[in-house]
């Protein structure tokens, strides 16, 4: 289907179903229950899952296929956001021009940076991209304040007078009148599920992005990118020029980042400079590795994983803990709460740090490998029979 083989089609369908039913899947606990804290099915977080999923999918096209580790990809996310907010300021709150422009601007920006940075490889390339992104961040934070609104972040003011904004248009981002922030809430017994317009727009674009990424992985172009990673020398002596390939991959992944940035701004019309900081670039690197670099679905999983812990664990506080464990006798409750307190609220980073280590130590192929192990356990296949070439399955089929 859609020019994909059976396995890829299945994967795409699974992802599509997951994305479509995310409002149910992410809200498994009744609203009033103690575990509702772990529900992630509210619009903002769901949007973030798919938007950062797009970001990571794009990053993976560069890193997973070519092995070029960019440490400045957040710059493209940032310019994408700025471009989109500027469109809102100038043209009006319809998200279409913003999203289109964010992709284009990020692509052009990636072309410039990529053209220069790709003159080097390995760590030298990483540091070049980092330097460009950090420069962009520093400028956006202070010098370019007239364009970026600095520390506060670029936003739409009522004095902006967009060109095409009519009185009847919603005064928030919308898609031809479909307001992004609006949701339909469905109550089923003790559960409540919200279906948000913005989320579905993002999810559809994510599916498109995912589909394109599968196609890229399976294309001759994708094969060449893997060849770059494997042996550039051989590539050159086989009559292939590695530079245009890597540059194309860089620009494509920059456009993905721009799309993610544009969507972020479309869901919430504010573009902050921190989006371009090295920590943001680092985050997408972590997402990709955590999920499984070079795999199709890994980056999406990694993005979800990180955003989940950041947003859910940071909101648990001591009194929530006491609420959960109040049924325990005090001498047990207090030490338990004391211990868990390290990992919640302001300690969410500790949870994340610990999980990073555990995942990378025990699941060398990232979360995808975890999934495969579970799959194997279920299907009862022993590892030895996986394939006869002697290479573990995770690496010989890099796109699982």
């Amino acid at each position: 289907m859609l020019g994909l083989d059976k396995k890829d089609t299945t994967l795409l369908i699974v992802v599509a179903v997951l994305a479509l039913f995310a409002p149910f899947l992410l809200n498994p606990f009744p609203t009033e229950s103690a575990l509702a804290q772990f529900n992630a099915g509210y619009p903002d977080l769901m949007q973030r899952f798919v938007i950062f999923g797009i970001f990571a999918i794009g990053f993976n096209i560069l890193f997973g296929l070519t092995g070029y580790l960019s440490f400045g990809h957040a710059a493209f996310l940032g310019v994408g956001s700025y471009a989109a907010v500027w469109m809102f300021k100038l043209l009006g709150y319809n998200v279409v021009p913003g999203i289109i422009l964010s992709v284009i601007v990020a692509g052009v920006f990636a072309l410039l940076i990529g053209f220069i940075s790709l003159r080097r490889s390995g760590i030298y390339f990483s540091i070049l991209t980092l330097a460009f992104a950090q420069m962009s961040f520093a400028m956006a934070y202070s010098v370019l304040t007239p364009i970026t609104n600095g520390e506060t972040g670029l936003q739409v003011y009522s004095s902006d007078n967009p060109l095409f904004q009519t009185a009847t248009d919603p005064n928030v981002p919308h898609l031809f009148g479909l307001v992004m922030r609006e949701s339909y809430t469905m109550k089923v017994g003790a559960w409540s599920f919200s279906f948000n317009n913005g989320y579905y727009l993002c999810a559809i674009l994510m599916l498109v992005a995912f589909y394109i990424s599968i196609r890229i992985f399976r294309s001759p172009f994708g094969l060449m990118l893997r060849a770059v990673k494997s042996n550039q020398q051989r590539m050159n002596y086989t009559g292939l020029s590695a530079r245009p390939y890597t540059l194309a991959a860089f620009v494509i992944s920059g456009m993905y980042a721009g799309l993610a940035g544009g969507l972020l701004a479309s869901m919430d019309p504010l573009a902050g400079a921190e989006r371009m900081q090295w920590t943001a670039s680092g985050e997408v690197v972590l997402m990709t590795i955590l999920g499984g670099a070079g795999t199709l679905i890994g980056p999406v999983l990694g993005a979800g994983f990180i955003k989940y812990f950041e947003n859910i664990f940071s909101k648990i506080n001591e009194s929530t803990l006491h609420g959960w464990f109040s049924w325990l006798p005090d001498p047990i409750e207090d030490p338990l709460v004391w211990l868990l307190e390290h990992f919640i609220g302001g300690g969410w980073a500790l949870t994340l740090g610990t999980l990073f280590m555990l995942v990378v130590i025990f699941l060398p192929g990232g979360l995808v490998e975890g999934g495969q192990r579970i799959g194997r356990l279920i299907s009862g296949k022993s590892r030895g029979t996986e394939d006869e070439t002697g290479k573990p399955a995770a690496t010989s089929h890099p796109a699982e």
Partner: protein
Amino acid sequence: MGILEVKNVNKRFGGLQALGNVNLSVAENTVHAIIGPNGAGKSTLLNVLVGKLIPDTGSVMFDGKSVLGRAPYEINQMGISRVFQTPEIFGDLTVMENMMIPCFAKRDGAFELNPLASVGKQTDIVERAEQMLIDMKMIDKRHMHAASMSRGDKRRLEIGMCLSQQPRLLLLDEPTAGMARADTNNTIDLLKQIKAERDITIAIIEHDMHVVFSLAERITVLAQGTPLVEDTPDKIKGHPKVREAYLGESA
């Protein structure tokens, strides 16, 4: 006038004259062997031919066009393919994928942006790569990870990759080193067969005299960076200087 004309090429590495005034002419559709002691500059000469090294002076013309100053991929696109002394393959890819890449390079040129095409649907490429694997007797290894093959197999794969490009000039740097005798003979047969089937010029570096004398139509002996003699195999075999400096008593 040969298809490859090397004139007055010099190359120094620091104090070492690796190539000194090398003149070489390789006639079209011949197998030309370059032999010589270790460190004579044979690989260096090949490096100059494929654009890996730029000589200090001199000129290299392929089919009437200069190759100097061109990037390796451009030189390859002109029709020169090279097999390296230590196998250079795409270790992370499967054998089949390894074989497909040169086929793509041959068909699409140095760069082609086709991110939405599907590798599996490129039937011409798949067929060609499969045929080459069959020719190389490696078809049963098609799904194998190239890096986990034994070294002899890697070398055969690399030769196959170069041949699948149908180059006009094939440069082989010790293609049968470390290859079992049977495979060496197979390779010789393969090269002979290819030679017979299509117009191809082969320049080969080898220390295995069995290979050299089975294939070569002309031989250049290189010593300390300069050609010592150039002649037919029979003459070279009997050449006293060559025997002393290179072949030793065993030849």
